[in-house]
């Protein structure tokens, strides 16, 4: 199985380059604002799927509450953009606050007057929250399904909190800043190639960084603790710390995605904290292949793309199809489409080298081998 090109690091980087170069070229060939905007939104979904892949695929931490970081990032950015459109002298108060009986800007809104400060908070707050929540959970050795359910519960708690704190969040109506984000005097039209480049650049650089992280010693240790945290502990590593970090890094990526989302859509609502949306992220990663960063990204593209384009024809049965497809993937392809590719490549390399597998029916060596390098 040395022959399996799937695990060849150089081949993996080639795939990365081809993938990102072709994505990067799209605005050059296509300037349709809708398409660019939509692809940019898909890019955000890709970021989210990639963050899930990092946390769940590499670290084995199934996080059904990724929407927390995503939503916090989105709200942070929305607050920043909202304050950009407020006038410090004449109308310092967003209109929904006065509706809800506030007379002064709440203290935690103050930093959002500054665009830089706002964006910093939009990224820092979810990351710090994940550090704290992760540390609490992982130090108590909450793991597996229990962690999944707890992250889900935490997500619901946030959903409810954001709904309830109407004076500060505008409740169910969410925040719709009137104007696009303005950075250094330049207004970022969400339908422009510039917005596309921004998202694409982030997706590219964060994915590459995540891939490097996977290949570092850190990534190696995290993959090991996915399999047997106990053993890693006895090797002298602080498992809770590692788990917390990979969880927080993944949350940070989701927060970045959240920020971008608001830039593109100019709207946030508690639905960012919706349980179904967070589970959908997991579906993207599962379908694409949770062990592969790029697989997860492609999973997001495939599912959201088909939802957008098949959706209208299959209006009534889309969920039925999605559910069925997902069940099939989980049942037969636990490592998603990337796992399928790996298996096919393994078969090819084996038949070409005439290397017969050792006896046994359990897992194919390829499956056992899944993710040694984390594509």
């Amino acid at each position: 199985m040395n022959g399996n090109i799937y695990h060849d690091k150089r081949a993996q980087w080639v795939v990365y380059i081809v993938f990102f170069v072709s994505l990067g070229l799209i605005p050059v060939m296509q300037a349709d604002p809708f398409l660019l905007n939509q692809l940019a939104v898909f890019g955000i979904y890709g970021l989210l799927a990639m963050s899930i892949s990092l946390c769940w695929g590499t670290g084995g931490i199934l996080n059904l509450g990724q929407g927390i970081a995503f939503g916090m990032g989105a709200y942070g950015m929305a607050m920043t953009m909202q304050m950009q459109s407020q006038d410090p002298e004449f109308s310092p108060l967003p209109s929904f606050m006065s509706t809800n009986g506030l007379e002064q800007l709440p203290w935690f809104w103050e930093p959002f007057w500054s665009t830089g400060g706002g964006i910093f908070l939009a990224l820092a707050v979810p990351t710090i929250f994940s550090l704290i929540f992760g540390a609490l959970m992982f130090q108590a050795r909450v793991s597996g399904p229990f962690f999944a359910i707890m992250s889900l519960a935490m997500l619901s708690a946030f959903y409810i909190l954001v709904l309830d704190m109407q004076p500060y969040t505008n409740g169910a109506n969410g925040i719709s800043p009137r104007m696009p984000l303005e950075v250094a005097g330049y207004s970022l039209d969400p339908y422009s190639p510039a917005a596309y480049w921004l998202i694409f650049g982030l997706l590219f650089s964060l994915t590459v960084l995540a891939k490097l992280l996977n290949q570092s010693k850190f990534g190696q240790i995290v993959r090991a603790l996915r399999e047997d945290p106990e053993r890693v502990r006895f090797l002298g590593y602080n498992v809770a710390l590692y788990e917390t970090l990979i969880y927080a890094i993944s949350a940070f990526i989701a927060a970045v995605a959240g920020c971008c989302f608001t830039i593109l859509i100019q709207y946030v609502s508690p639905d960012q904290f919706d349980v179904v949306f967070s589970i959908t992220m997991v579906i993207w990663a599962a379908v694409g292949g949770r062990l592969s960063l790029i697989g997860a990204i492609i999973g997001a593209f495939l599912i959201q793309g088909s939802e957008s384009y098949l959706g209208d024809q299959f209006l009534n049965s889309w969920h039925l199809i999605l559910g069925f497809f997902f069940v099939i993937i989980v049942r037969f392809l636990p490592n998603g489409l990337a796992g399928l590719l790996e298996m096919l490549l393994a078969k090819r390399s084996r038949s070409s080298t005439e290397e017969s597998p050792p006896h046994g029916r359990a897992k194919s060596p390829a499956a056992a081998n899944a993710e040694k390098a984390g594509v």
Partner: protein
Amino acid sequence: MDYSWAPLMGSLVLGLSIASIWLVAALGLTIIYGTAGVINMAHGEFIMLGAYAAYCAQAYLGTPFLLCLPISFVVVALIGLFFERVLIRYLYHRPLDTLLATWGVSLMLTQGVRMIFGSSPKYVQVPEFLSGNVSLGIMNMSSLRILIVLMTVVLIVGIWYLFYRTYFGIKIRAVTQNREMAASFGVNSERIYMCTFALGAGLAGVAGCLFSALAIVLPTMGSNYVVESFLVVVTGGGPLVGSIAASAMMGEFKSFFSYFFNSTFAQFLLFVLIVIVLRFRPNGLFANTAVRR
């Protein structure tokens, strides 16, 4: 507001009612998780199916409400059985994957029901004596809620009897503890898992039938119960007593928090409280300490 003891008693009783609602919703989940270790994300949809089964029985056969309870049980148990056979049984050794796969099932069930019945709410009629109210001095409770409490007690006693007083129960507990050894003594563990899953699904069906009278019958109604059910099971740690204790705790806290704050914020506080509990008892209140070697 008047903070004397009478309203507090009122919320205590209300807490009991909320607890029984959550517990009856969580019973099926508890059994499935406790026995087979499967996290059944489609549980909410099984509840929904129970409600639709009651609706169909009433609309097409004219079955009276109380008779709908066993019908819901049987129908949903059969549906559960089907999914166990075609899907779950391949995943018993992959607990996280059961969670995902059952979520896929839940998507399909919601959409399937919507395609058959449409997304408008369905109406289940309850007999006159259940749409009233019983007043005991300072305490007040609707008869339907009393029925739910009674039904919960009956189901718990039934499950307890089944688990601790029948041969089937010995088999279930044996399989739960050591599947291989149970098989070595003639227990067909596959079939036990299958029956347990069907039983759990059936119990969800009963819950759905009860809820159809309390709230609303919709394809999406399951999601209203599923998170709370999970929390009951997770906080309880798996065994039946755990779920009873957890739901009692959660119901009373919810009721008390709602008394002092509003319902929304009460819900939030409750979730935070559970996170804290889990921080100190990571495997739930009544977890079996498993020996790993």
